[in-house]
């Protein structure tokens, strides 16, 4: 099994990056032996104007990870991770090592929906920060993707 953890660096001592879409890196860890098996460089996302979460979630899905440990996940990224069958643990902090140990101790709870505050809305000249664009109840921010996969 592989776990993807959003990270500010590339070692077990690096801190968990609280942002999913704009995390600097994703370290892919094998929880059996606490080894880093792969690192995804996501630094380019910091310049991306739109859809950083979509891009990050796609790369994580392609990595073959089954679980994501991170701070906050937006609705679009969550929809992708869900479609890929990846479980998400949010509100994770500390170092990669600590996050992994907490996960292994079984204390982590899987998220059932996106952490909507991570929704990266653009600054609006009118209100400073644009309000969420919700379109109804229990639909996250109303901006989930369309289409389903057929398994992998």
């Amino acid at each position, binding site marked *: 099994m592989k776990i993807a953890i959003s990270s500010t660096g590339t070692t077990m001592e690096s801190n968990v990056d609280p942002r999913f879409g704009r995390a600097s890196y994703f370290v892919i860890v094998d929880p059996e032996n606490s080894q880093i098996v792969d690192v995804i460089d996501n630094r380019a996302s910091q310049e991306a104007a739109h*859809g950083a979460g979509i891009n990050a979630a*796609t790369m994580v*899905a392609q990595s073959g990870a089954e679980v994501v440990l991170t701070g906050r996940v937006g609705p679009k990224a969550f929809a992708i991770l869900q479609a890929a069958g990846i479980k998400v643990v949010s509100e994770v902090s500390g170092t990669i090592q600590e996050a992994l140990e907490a996960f292994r101790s079984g204390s982590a709870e899987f998220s059932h929906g996106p952490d909507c505050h991570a929704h990266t809305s653009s600054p609006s000249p*009118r209100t400073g920060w644009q309000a969420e664009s919700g379109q109804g109840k229990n639909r996250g921010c*109303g901006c989930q993707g*369309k*289409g389903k996969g*057929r398994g992998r």
Partner: protein
Amino acid sequence: MKIAVASGKGGTGKTTVAVCLALSSGQPVTFVDCDVEEPNSHIFLRPEIEGSRKFHLPVPGIDESRCNYCGKCRDICRFNAVTVFGKTIMTFPDMCHSCGGCFLVCEQDAVREERRNIGVIEWGKAGEIDFFQGKLRIGEAMSSPLIKEVKKQTLFEEKKGLTILDAPPGTSCPVIKTVRDTDFVILVTEPTPFGLHDLKLAASTISTLGIPTGVIINKSGVGDLGVKNWCKDQGLPLLMEIPFSREAASAYAKGVPIVEVEHGLKEKFNELIEEISR
């Protein structure tokens, strides 16, 4: 003559100025409310809406029976509006800028055109004024294409007489879309440090387009001289100062254009239009 009225942020009196211009000219006037997220000039102009049409953007819909998950559509999309991983393809229509890239690049003919409604265009008459406005669907972010379409509806290129465009607040793409191909831009600001800050941003955005620009200070008398001094330094003409007055504020609150209550203001705006047209 096409005059766009813009401001670095909302609430400076941009719409007030645009409405005053429209009501003060002797020429035939077309009014275009391009502030599609929050069009409110209709509150003051009270147009009779005579027609409307919905506006759609073409977005990709995937025929999964044809798709081989090659990922070419994902790789070409600069907006991350479509993604592919494993045997899964997902589209995010609200991210799509309708650039057409994914349609072109798909070799399997799996990308089909779907239409996504982003808002509505309305037109009618406000007295003698030809009135147009765009209204973006709530929660929608793609204001630029709608603005472009509203201008198209007015037959912008061939338009004679005076056209007034009320731009969205801010300094981003929708402002540029509104201002492009106009003859003059009026920037409305308040005489405060915040007003100056936003004015600087707006002025630098507009300056990239090379359109003659001037400044109107709204509520003059309440703030400081920062805006005035800066305009002088920059060689940006100060076109008018609208003094703060109780009558104007209460007229505004009731949806009455301030040229109706402020004595002599209509004449001042008429002169301004003449001067700009010269």
